[in-house]
């Protein structure tokens, strides 16, 4: 059934239909609506056979999730920004222990200065934690990705973050079609843990590893992570067959002219500028690039759906013969450039590609179609540098006008 739902509601209902055994989370903007909705469903019984655990912090939320998963339950949590950083130690532990927890990250900037709005700084800070990181382009995909995430995480024994842009998606209402409970039951097998603490057969998970074995443990974790790309693709393919719509995958291609998501779209050609992006800015890029294409401007759009594992092969395939790439980056590697750009650059090493890093939308600055179109024009005219800050106000930090909003920016 197609319906208008707030993104957080769409995610919460879909998570409930994945039948987690334990949900443990601590509220933080802009994730709060998701866990509020789940707590209501736990009370009303819509989220059945699930223990909803209230804790006093994000560190405890992840610790309880680890305990729940190690005890054999399908475990879910959600957080954002400082909350993700506060649980960071436990985030790494969940991955090292091979516990397939699924966590929504409602992407938000990281302070200081304190800022509750959207960018990708929080998830990027955890890029090497050993979790899968799947990014949603819109609210339909944000909901659908959770079904894929549970499937892929549990097959791999690797935890998964589903990253959705805070406020821009979590608090926006869109027309969505949620997977029904029956559909999810038919698609996602019940959780069968490959390791579970059992009092009758005592084992240890997450023991100390000394210099004699730590390298080998990390190497094995790395090898398992190499399996992840194929597993994510496989679950995404099965999702498409079961639900009749695209979600997830590694790299997303778009039709050159309609800008519709199209897995059959041809790779970019040597004349094309390729715009690579991740998250909700993809929707704005679809809207911004369509008229440019209609005007004959050679530009293509490629989305990154799986940031971890980073799909270098699939990205190179989609970029094809193009050697001119502009990355829209929602997080900054200080002194260097966009974080996504660094990964794209490594994937394109040896191809002699011209790469632009366009840092955009930090701390909730709205990303405008006109600004993106101008960046494309400048790139094609040879006027765009290697590192640009979209809509940067010159002359330092301006004093906001009284009652300033985006309208008055």
């Amino acid at each position, binding site marked *: 059934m197609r319906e208008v739902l707030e993104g957080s509601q769409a995610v919460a209902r879909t998570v409930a239909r994945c039948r987690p055994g334990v949900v443990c989370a601590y509220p933080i903007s802009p994730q709060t609506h998701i866990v509020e909705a789940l707590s209501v469903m736990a009370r009303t019984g819509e989220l059945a056979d699930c223990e909803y655990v209230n804790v006093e912090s994000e560190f405890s939320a992840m610790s309880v999730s680890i305990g729940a998963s190690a005890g054999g339950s399908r475990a879910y949590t959600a957080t954002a920004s400082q909350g993700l950083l506060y649980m960071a130690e436990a985030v790494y532990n969940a991955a090292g222990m091979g516990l397939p927890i699924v966590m929504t990250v409602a992407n938000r900037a990281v302070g200081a200065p304190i800022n509750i709005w959207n960018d990708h700084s929080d998830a990027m800070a955890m890029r090497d934690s050993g979790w899968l990181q799947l990014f949603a382009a819109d609210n339909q995909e944000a909901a659908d990705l959770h079904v894929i995430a549970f499937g892929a995480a549990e097959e791999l024994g690797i935890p998964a973050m589903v990253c959705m842009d805070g406020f821009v998606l979590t608090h*926006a209402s869109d027309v969505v079609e949620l997977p029904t409970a029956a559909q999810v039951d038919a698609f996602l097998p019940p959780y069968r843990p490959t390791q579970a603490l059992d009092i009758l057969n005592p084992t240890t998970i997450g023991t100390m590893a000394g210099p004699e074995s730590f390298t080998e443990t990390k190497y094995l974790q790395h090898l398992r992570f190499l399996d992840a790309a194929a597993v994510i693709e496989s679950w995404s393919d099965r999702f498409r067959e079961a639900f009749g719509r695209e979600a997830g995958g590694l790299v997303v291609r778009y039709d050159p002219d309609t800008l519709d998501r199209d897995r059959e779209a041809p790779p970019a050609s040597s004349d094309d500028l390729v715009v690579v992006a991740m998250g909700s800015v993809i929707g704005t890029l679809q809207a911004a690039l369509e008229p440019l294409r209609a005007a004959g401007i050679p530009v293509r759009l490629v989305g990154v759906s799986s940031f971890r594992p980073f799909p270098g092969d699939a990205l190179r395939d989609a970029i094809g013969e193009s050697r001119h790439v502009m990355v829209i980056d929602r997080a900054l590697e200080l002194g260097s450039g966009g974080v996504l750009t660094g990964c794209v650059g490594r994937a394109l090493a040896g191809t002699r590609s011209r790469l632009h890093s366009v840092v955009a939308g930090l701390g909730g600055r709205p990303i405008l179609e006109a600004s993106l179109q101008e960046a494309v024009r400048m790139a094609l005219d040879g006027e765009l540098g290697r590192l640009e800050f979209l809509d940067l106000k010159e002359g330092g930090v301006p004093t906001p006008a009284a009652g300033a909003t985006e309208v008055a920016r």
Partner: protein
Amino acid sequence: MRQVRVHGRGGQGVVTAAEMLARAGFLAGHEAQAIPSFGSERTGAPVVSYCRFADVPLRTREPVLAPDVVLVQDPTLLASDRPFAGLAPGGLVIVNTAADATAVRADAGAEDADATVLTVPAMQITMTHLGKPKPAAAMLAAYAAASDDITLDAVQQVFRERFPGAVGEANAAAAAEAFAYVRDELAAVGAAAGSEG
């Protein structure tokens, strides 16, 4: 595509107004999108939200910069919050106020704006029926009265679904009164042969 911007203050249901508008638009057969803007989380601070309708799925996530319709839930924002900014030529501005369109234009510094300005005492109507200063249903009903984008029935339906029981009914009653008020206002404008009411 139809683009709507809602101005109000924290606590007045500005974000809810955009969400309810998207739902009403969807009921009317449109693709719809509501985007909140959290300029501040403080009660009473200026808040803006956005809504879009279209006949194809909506892709863009940028704020509405050139609205076709602007709903102002709090007339004290007319001077400071620039509600006429970016308004599409011939756009519609509906203001919750007991004053008239001429006073609204003067307050907003928009005497010469190419716009249709309608006023509706939505807060007064809402306080009568609901008893709380949340005029979203009345404002959306005023919009329904002034355009074909959404209907009164749809506005009442989405509020009844969202707030089952007495609150939904009170919102529906406020919507009906605001709808009738604006229809009367439009009839008066028509009778005055095109001069603005």
